[in-house]
Every structure is written in C-alpha cells, then in structure tokens.
C-alpha cells in the first residue's frame, strides 16, 4: 500500500473537528475527495478529530454505499440498474462498458476504471442513465466509451410539461433560475407576506390550503407544523428532505436544478411558522450537480439578507446548511435522515415519539419534501382560496408526476389533481411507446401496478386510494405489452435487498428471501410453494417491519401476484401472455 499523506487532511480536520459527530458525513466526504477512498489511517484521524469511537466511524463508512473503505479505480461508472433504465438497455450498456474496462489499480492517473451497478439515479426520463465521478449522464448508450470515461458530456436537459406551471413556472431554461429572476417573477413575496403575519396565521393558511406532504406519506402539512410549533424544546429545526431515491422519482431533482429559490422560500416560511432558527437541506449523495446549484442559491440568499440574522429585514433570524447523503435510500425516511445528520448509520428510529416533538438532535423538527415546500410560496402569495381553485376538494393544488419507461415523451408533468391517468399518459406524454399499455407502476418500487382498466382513474388521493393504487411520490413507470414484468420485479427485489438497513428482522431477512424467490420466478422456474412463501414473506414485511421501507418492500410483488398469478408458476404451466 502506498504511504498515506495525512498532512493533506489537516484543513478538513480543522474545519469539521470542532463540530463533533454531526460533521462525520461531511468530513468523510471531504476526506474521500482527497484520497479517492477512506484508508484506515484517514478514518482514524477523522474519528479522533471529531471524537467519535473508531468502531462507529467504520460502521458509518460501511453503511453508506458511496464511502469506500478500500481503494477503488480513479474513475467509477455507476450504471443505473432499476426498471426504467433496465428497459432502456442498462444490462447491455453494463456489459459493453465492462468489456471495455481493464481494471488496473496501480496504473498512472486517469487510466483505472471500474463499472458498478447502481440503484435508481433519479434520471429515469433519460434512461439508460449513468453517473461518472458524480457527473450525471443521460442516454448513456449513445455516448462513446472515451467520452464517458473523460466525463466530457452535456448535462441532461430538463423535460417538463403539463397543464399548469405553478411549481414548474421557472423550469425548462436548462439552467438554474437566479435570485434576481426569481424575485422579479414574484419570488419571495410569499415569505414577505408571511413575515407580516403571525406564525399562527400562517399555519391556519396552510391548513386551509389543504396541502398534504408530497414525500409519500401524504400527511397534512399544516397539522405537522402546528405540532412542532406547539411542542416545547429549543432550538427547533426544519429539514428539507431532498434524499429522493425512490426508483422512478426525479421531481425533486428537476425542481432543485431549475428553481432552488422556490424551495428555499418554502423552507423559510416553514421555519418562521414553527419558530425554527436553524435548518438542514439534505440532498442525496448522487445529486452532485444539484448540490452545487442549491449551494449557490443559498449563498445568493445569504448575501441578499434572506438568510441570516434578520430575514428580509425582519426580526426573524434563520440560517441553514446543506448536507450531502452518501448512498442510502433509507436515509429518505425522516428519522433515518436525522440519524444521518447526527453522524450515524441511517437506522430509522422507533415512532412514537414523532419528529414534531423529538426530531433532529431530539428537538422539535418539521421535515418536508422538496415538492411540499415548493407549494408554499404560492399559497402564501395568493392565499389558500386561490390555491384550492386547482385540484379537487379533498386533493387541492398542483401535483408533479414523474413519467418514465415505455412512454413517448418521458419527463416531469405538472397537472392539477383530478386529471385522469389517460389524460396524463396519452394527451400529455404522447402515449405508450412500442406497443399497448400493459401496466404502470404507481408510486415507485414501494408502489403497486395499475392496468389498462385504470386509465379512467382520476389522479387524486381519494380516487387512487379507492382503486387500491398508491400516489406515493408521484411516480408512474409505464410498461408496454412486450415487457416481462418478472424482470421488473426482480429489479425491485434487488433494490430492496440492497437498501434494507438491516435493523429489523422482517425486512433484513425478508428482502433477501423475497429476492431469492424472485430470482427463481424471473428464471421461469419457481418452486411449487413459492407463491405461498412470497405471500408469507410479503405480508410479514408489510405487517411487522419497523419502518416504511420494509412495510412497502413487498407492495409491488403482492400487487403483481393479484393481477398476473400466471407469472409465478413454472414457465411450462404459465399462460401464453406471460411468456413474451
């Protein structure tokens, strides 16, 4: 092994050491940027400077997929392995790239390359996607190997459409909206109005708007804020959840790269309403370009007096920092995200207590999704009544949908709640590509399948619930009739087995057992009792897991078993349509 020069690390230790354990992920990221991986002496130096036990630091490095305890190639190509990219030829891309790579760890700079499979990169509308040294690459099958390895590639373009443009008003320029542009288009007027009202009035307005969370759990936002506002504890925190990693979801990425100030304004409104003085914006580790854009926007806001000791000249003071995830889907779960900010493995906590009373650092905390926060400037600037003009009585407002897979125009679509699936798919996204509609996965990996009979379903919380479909985070992955859904299920099974945190037995063991059975199913050779096994495993995960990951890890599989039981019997016995 080469000698490790620890003097390089000094500035990192000086910056992060005084902050203690909470700075563990930032310190490890900074250290890995210097050395390319996290060698033992580096991990030890970080542990000592931050006063974290050595074993704990190692436990953290081991938990997050983007931290490397061993030396890796200078260039790592991460090829997305999840359904949308899988359908667009990710396997062939992976094979092709692998065959081009000669792994040679000790070769001079720029020559060592490895190819790895990655979970959904949040670039589903650009399938097949990959990431090279943090740079996002669209339609990677159309790039030459040389360009990929050199990272000389254009940034993916934003694909937005829809019936309305409230949340996406400033999206589509293919560059971030500046503070000046945002302010000129009416930005930060919602915050100004908020600062002239009492926190209680704002909470009342948000409640009246009927806004519910867009992160997947659909919890009423005003109610959540009220809980934290009424909780005792100081300081209080607000957190923007930008850990977007649900396979098929890319809406938060598009919002961040196009219009970061809208989200920041939402976060500030939230902070003022609940009485929080500090905030965090937690962005998934794979979104490096978006992280830069958000960092720049936050800096702009701080320069302009929108963040800091006196927000927009008012007595309200608020500041915040941006945190980078490190490759763990589970850290999108709110309590796992707190653990991650606190410098720990992303293990979800037992609830209750809930974040509104015992959140980040044990203090009252509001955590909201990026899209949820992006609704607030409009609500505050135009009032709840006007907001409710969009959508239905029970599902007011605009909604973003992420369409990918076999669809003519994949992308992000903004519609009022209440349009039909048919309208979204056929009128807006140009219909199914390559054949007839066979199925659509609603809600991502944690979701359930819709079939052509659901085309008339209106996209609202109430209609989808009645149809047994989750809205989740607004993912719709489309499959034409030529697709083998067993391959899709296999990818989902792999995703959950990879991403389970391992804390509770039903999910730690169940995601593995489920994946093993799905491998047999995908190969067309399930064992006689596999249907019963999948059901027992599935229901046990759903019913007995500690957190939402395990509770939804069998959702798509169970839904496929209801729609297409023939997929789960040995190939010889299965119905013809299953053999495509």
């Amino acid at each position, binding site marked *: 092994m080469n000698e490790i020069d620890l003097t390089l690390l000094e500035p990192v230790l000086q910056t992060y050491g005084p902050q203690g354990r909470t700075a563990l992920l930032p310190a490890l990221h900074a250290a890995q940027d210097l050395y390319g991986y996290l060698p*033992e002496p580096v*991990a*030890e130096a970080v542990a000592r400077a931050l006063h974290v*036990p*050595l*074993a*704990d*630091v*190692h*436990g953290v490095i*081991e*938990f997050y997929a983007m931290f490397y*305890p061993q030396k890796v190639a200078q260039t790592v190509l991460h090829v997305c392995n999840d359904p949308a990219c899988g359908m667009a030829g990710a396997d062939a891309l992976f094979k092709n790239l692998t065959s081009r790579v000669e792994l040679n760890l000790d070769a001079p700079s720029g020559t060592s390359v490895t190819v790895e499979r990655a979970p959904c990169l949040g670039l589903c509308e650009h399938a097949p996607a990959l990431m090279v040294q943090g740079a996002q690459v669209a339609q990677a099958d159309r790039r030459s190997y040389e360009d990929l390895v050199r990272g000389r590639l254009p940034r993916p373009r934003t694909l937005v459409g829809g019936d309305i443009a409230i949340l996406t008003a400033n999206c589509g320029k293919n560059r971030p909206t500046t503070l000046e542009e945002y302010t000129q288009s009416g930005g930060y007027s919602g915050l100004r109005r908020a600062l002239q009202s009492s926190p209680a009035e704002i909470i009342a307005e948000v409640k009246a708007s009927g806004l519910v969370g867009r992160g997947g759990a659909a919890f009423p936002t005003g109610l959540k804020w009220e809980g934290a506002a009424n909780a005792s504890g100081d300081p209080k925190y607000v957190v923007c959840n930008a850990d977007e990693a649900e396979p098929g979801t890319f809406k938060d990425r598009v919002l961040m790269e196009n219009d970061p100030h809208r989200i920041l304004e939402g976060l500030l409104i939230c902070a003022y309403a609940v009485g929080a003085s500090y905030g965090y914006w937690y962005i998934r580790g794979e979104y490096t370009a978006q992280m830069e854009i958000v960092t720049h926007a936050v800096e702009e806001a701080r320069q302009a007096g929108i963040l800091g000791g006196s927000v927009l000249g008012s007595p309200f003071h608020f500041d915040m920092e941006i945190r980078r995830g490190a490759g*763990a889907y589970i850290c999108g779960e709110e309590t796992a995200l707190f653990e991650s900010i606190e410098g720990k*493995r992303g293990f979800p906590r*037992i609830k209750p207590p809930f974040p509104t009373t015992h959140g980040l650092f044990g203090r009252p905390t509001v955590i909201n999704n990026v899209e949820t926060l992006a609704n607030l400037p409009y609500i505050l600037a135009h009032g709840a009544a006007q907001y409710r003009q969009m959508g239905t009585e029970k599902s007011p407002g605009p909604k973003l949908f992420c369409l990918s897979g076999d669809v003519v125009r994949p992308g992000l679509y903004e519609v009022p709640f209440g349009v039909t699936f048919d309208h979204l798919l056929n009128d807006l996204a140009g219909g199914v590509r390559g054949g007839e509609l066979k199925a659509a996965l609603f809600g991502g990996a944690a979701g359930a399948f819709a079939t052509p009979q659901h085309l008339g379903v209106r996209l609202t919380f109430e209609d989808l619930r009645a149809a047994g479909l989750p809205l989740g985070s607004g993912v719709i992955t489309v499959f034409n009739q030529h697709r083998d859904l067993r391959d899709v299920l296999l990818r989902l099974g792999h995703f959950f*087995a*990879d*991403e*389970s*945190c*391992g*804390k*509770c*037995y*039903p999910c*730690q*063991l*169940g*995601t*593995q*057992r489920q994946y*093993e059975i799905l491998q047999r199913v995908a190969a067309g050779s399930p*064992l006689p009792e596999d249907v019963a*096994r999948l059901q*027992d*495993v599935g*229901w*046990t995960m*759903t*019913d*007995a*897991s*500690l957190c939402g990951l395990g*509770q939804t890890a069998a959702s798509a599989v169970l839904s496929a078993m209801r729609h297409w039981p023939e997929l789960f019997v040995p190939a010889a016995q299965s119905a013809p349509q299953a053999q495509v």
Partner: protein
Amino acid sequence: MSESISLTINGQPVTVPAGTTLLKAAEQAGISIPTICYHDYCTANGLCRLCVVEVEGSRTLVASCVAKAAPNMQVQTHSERVLRARRTVLEMLEASVDLSEAPEIQAFSQELNADPQRFPDAEKRQPPVVDDNPMYVRDYAKCVLCWRCVQVCAEDAQYTFAINFTGRGFETQIGTFFEKPLPDTSCVFCGQCVGVCPTNALKPKRQWLMEQGYSTDEIMDMTRTERRRRKRAPLSAE
C-alpha cells in the same frame, strides 16, 4: 397523565402504571410473548419483531417490547395475523443463521410450528469463526443481530465502543474498526457482551476449546501463553 392505565389484552382487563410497555403489561396479566432481541438490561430497539401484537386501530402490528400501554387499548397477543408474522420471522431466521446453540429460539419455533426448512436454497450467513484473543471467540454464523453486545459495549454498560456494525441489510455483521483483532481495539475484555449474547455466537474461549476436545491443562497452557504474549507486545514494539 394519570398514574395508572387500563387496557384490555386478549379481552382481559389489565391496569398498569403509565409508561409500562405492552410486553410487561401482558406479563403482568400472565400472558407470555416470545422475544429474541429484548433484554431487561439493554435498550430495547424493536429489532426481532417476534414480540409483535395486534393493537386495534393500528395499521401495522406493533412491537410490544417498545410500545407503551395507552388508555383503553385493545391488544391481541396471539391472533392469526400475529402468529403468521412470528412464524415467518422464525422460518426466515432458521434459514439464515445457525441456531443450534439457541435452545430458546428453537423452542419458539416449535411452539409456533415454524418449519426450519421453509426456505430451500436460501443464502445463510456463514462467516468464519474469529479467534483473535484469549478470552472469547466470535462465531457470527450464529449471530442473530440482537445488538445487545454492541449496546453493552457502548452506552448500555461499558462505554468502550470496541464493536459496531459492518455492511447493511442481510449483509450486516458485528465487527471492529477495519476488522482489527480485538486486542488491537479499545476492548477491555470485560466479557459483558459474552454474557448477553443469546445464541452462543460469543463464547468464552475456554468453553470453546473444551468443546473442541482439549483437556483443562492444555487449555490453561494455551490461553496463558496467549495472554503473556499480549502483555509483552507493547514493550517489544519500542
């Protein structure tokens, strides 16, 4: 909050002090709920989910070792839904871990009619035995990830922080900093972890050697020299 709470468990009224877990409330009512990860002297984390019960109005089952009794709660500790979850967890565990020295877990399996062969061709966790110190051996093929050893080594007792986790999900394992041998870690060989391990994954070295067929004298000899070598090591390093 009132001092005592009344609830019903399996139709039977029970009154317990506020803050009592459902596990303890059931115990008070003479109802026994199986547990693996729970230990009276360790922080309860709700890991194994063997203790799950059905609470009216709750979407999912709840872990009784951590859920607190609430007024008028209606609890079922042995409903079909509960038994299915317990049985499946045990079957999946049997397929993953060597439970040959965990008689208590085996007894639960029998009671619940869990089939240890339910999952054919399942991957087992089978890391090699770690024999790196004179005090105890670590056979993580028997580890059920109850977290007790990690917790007593940390804030639950000893504050030594010698062990933590490696990997995640099914691949999770208990380990040291960069897999170093225990004598090179902060471990003080207090033996607390060995004491709380429910499956014999952690075992006194002498017991282990005895099981391998060594005589008492041989064992004394082997472990004594090992200890001396340890003591000398820092000096000769100078």
